């Protein structure tokens, strides 16, 4: 007996909405990211180094695309929830699902199981990154601590010219 009903299994393969970054990739946003991730490669900030490289311009590191999408100004503050629900963990679960319908199962814990990525090109400063996700697998598994469900989401990231940057598969564990 599993949690993955026919209805849930039917989510697999259905493309979610295309979503787009708030604006072009900015130098300050990239600098803050590059410093926080402790990235040592100067092609991510030094114009000269970048120009001399295959990239030709300052680029973001390959997995940056995962963090390219932010909350628009003027939208409801998710942290308002802490005012009414002191024990909320601060995790916007829906944000991890790229606009896909939620997997509605009675398992409470949601864990990041892993990442798989193929890289084609790196986003340049000024690129407007967009993405589209779909479930590629939703399956029941028996874990060490009991039943669990694994959902794998594939997201394709592109620049404003429709050129593919990366294809990323994230596995979410419900248990």
């Amino acid at each position, binding site marked *: 007996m599993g949690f993955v009903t026919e209805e849930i299994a039917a989510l697999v393969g259905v493309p979610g909405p295309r979503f787009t970054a708030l604006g072009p990739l900015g130098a300050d946003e990239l600098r803050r*990211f590059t410093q926080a991730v402790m990235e040592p490669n100067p092609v991510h900030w030094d114009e000269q180094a970048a120009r001399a490289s*295959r990239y030709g311009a300052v680029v973001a590191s390959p*997995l940056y695309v995962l963090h390219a999408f932010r909350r628009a100004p003027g939208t409801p503050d998710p942290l308002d929830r802490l005012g009414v629900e002191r024990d909320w*963990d601060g995790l916007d679960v829906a944000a991890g699902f790229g606009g896909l319908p939620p997997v509605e199962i009675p398992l409470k814990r949601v864990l*990041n199981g892993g*990442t798989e990525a*193929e*890289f084609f*090109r790196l986003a340049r400063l000024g690129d407007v990154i967009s993405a589209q996700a779909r479930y590629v697998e939703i399956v029941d598994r028996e874990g060490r601590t009991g039943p669990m469900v694994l959902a794998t989401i594939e997201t394709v990231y592109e620049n404003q010219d429709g050129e593919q940057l990366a294809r990323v598969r994230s596995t979410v564990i419900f248990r």
Partner: protein
Amino acid sequence: MTDTAGLHFEDVSFGDELPSLVRGPMTTTHVMRWSAAIENWHRIHYDQPFAVEHDKLPALLLNGSWKQHVLVQLVRGWAEPTGWLAHIKMSFRGMDFVGDTITAWGRVTEVEERDGLGIVVCEIGLRNQRGEETTPGTATVALPLRGGREVPYPFPGLGG
């Protein structure tokens, strides 16, 4: 890019170890900086009472979202500027905590020449100072052959 500088397929053999990358000890401050940079407010990374008392964790957790980048840095630091990290895969099997020092390591497990490029597969992982392998994975890199063509950029994918 000259033909002799940088890593080429001929420089790589089965069993070779990648130069390891050490990060840490990772403090709450590092984790706060990361969480703020990516605007992820999950409290298990920076709110000690919440992590320990509410979520029953032993300590504040290092972000998986950060750890995956360390593995990318490990492989690119070895393979670029000549090579291209074409594929990477990792599983978050174990937890790393604030206070931990993380070592990213890699070892060459497959070498193959394909369409005028060298395709190299590495076993990779993150190990903490307790010796726990928390983030095992694999990476596939395309390298130029000595005297051969450059690795194409944009990279078309590994295909079959």
